[in-house]
């Protein structure tokens, strides 16, 4: 399991590649990866920037719990999860969920499940900065399934 909070811009594909360098890739026929990025719009608002607040200590624990529960449900998987914290610009990566497995169904299902649980359980809160300089908290995430 790899879970990390990152306070500056990062390249998700670099994280994925680095993790693969220490995995037995000849055993892992499937990799399912989700990358979420900051858009410069949300609903009908133009968004210029964002701040990602978290609950130090609890956020890491929640991410580790979510991944551990996925690994217990799909024992064959290997996971890498990263989440941005702090001040974020449009197009920056907010979240990476990468799941490797021998077979595609476990990788795909576990990747989707980890992302949905992260979005509804992990203690992050987004505050948007709009083009007029005002700021507002995002009220809630949209359901994913």
């Amino acid at each position: 399991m790899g879970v990390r909070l990152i306070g500056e811009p990062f390249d998700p594909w670099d994280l994925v590649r680095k993790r693969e360098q220490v995995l037995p890739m000849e055993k892992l026929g499937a990799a399912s990866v989700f990358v979420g990025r900051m858009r410069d719009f949300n609903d009908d608002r133009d968004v210029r920037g964002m701040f990602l607040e978290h609950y130090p200590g609890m956020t890491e624990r929640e991410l580790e719990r979510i991944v551990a529960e996925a690994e217990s449900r799909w024992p064959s998987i290997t996971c890498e999860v990263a989440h941005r914290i702090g001040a974020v610009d449009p197009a920056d990566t907010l979240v990476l969920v990468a799941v490797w497995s021998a077979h595609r169904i476990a990788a795909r299902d576990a990747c989707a499940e980890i992302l949905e649980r992260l979005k509804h359980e992990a203690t992050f809160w987004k505050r948007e900065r709009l083009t007029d300089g005002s700021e507002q908290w995002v009220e809630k995430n949209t359901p994913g399934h």
Partner: protein
Amino acid sequence: MTITVQYFARLREDLGREGDQVTVTEGVGTVADVWMYLHREAPPPRLMAAVNQSHARLDTPVADGDEVAFFPPVTGG
């Protein structure tokens, strides 16, 4: 009984502080009781809570030394 309370995100901003300290001898047994004791009103709708950095419900019991957090719905990812 002493309980440390933390607030996050919009709730922290609305309350104007990062946390509170609760020191009581009786009448505070659950997460909801902690909120009521501090704010003299029922918890607002959609309030989320944690006890010792694990998600909790309003009827989750609290004990001496616990860290209780209140926050709005999470919006990560």
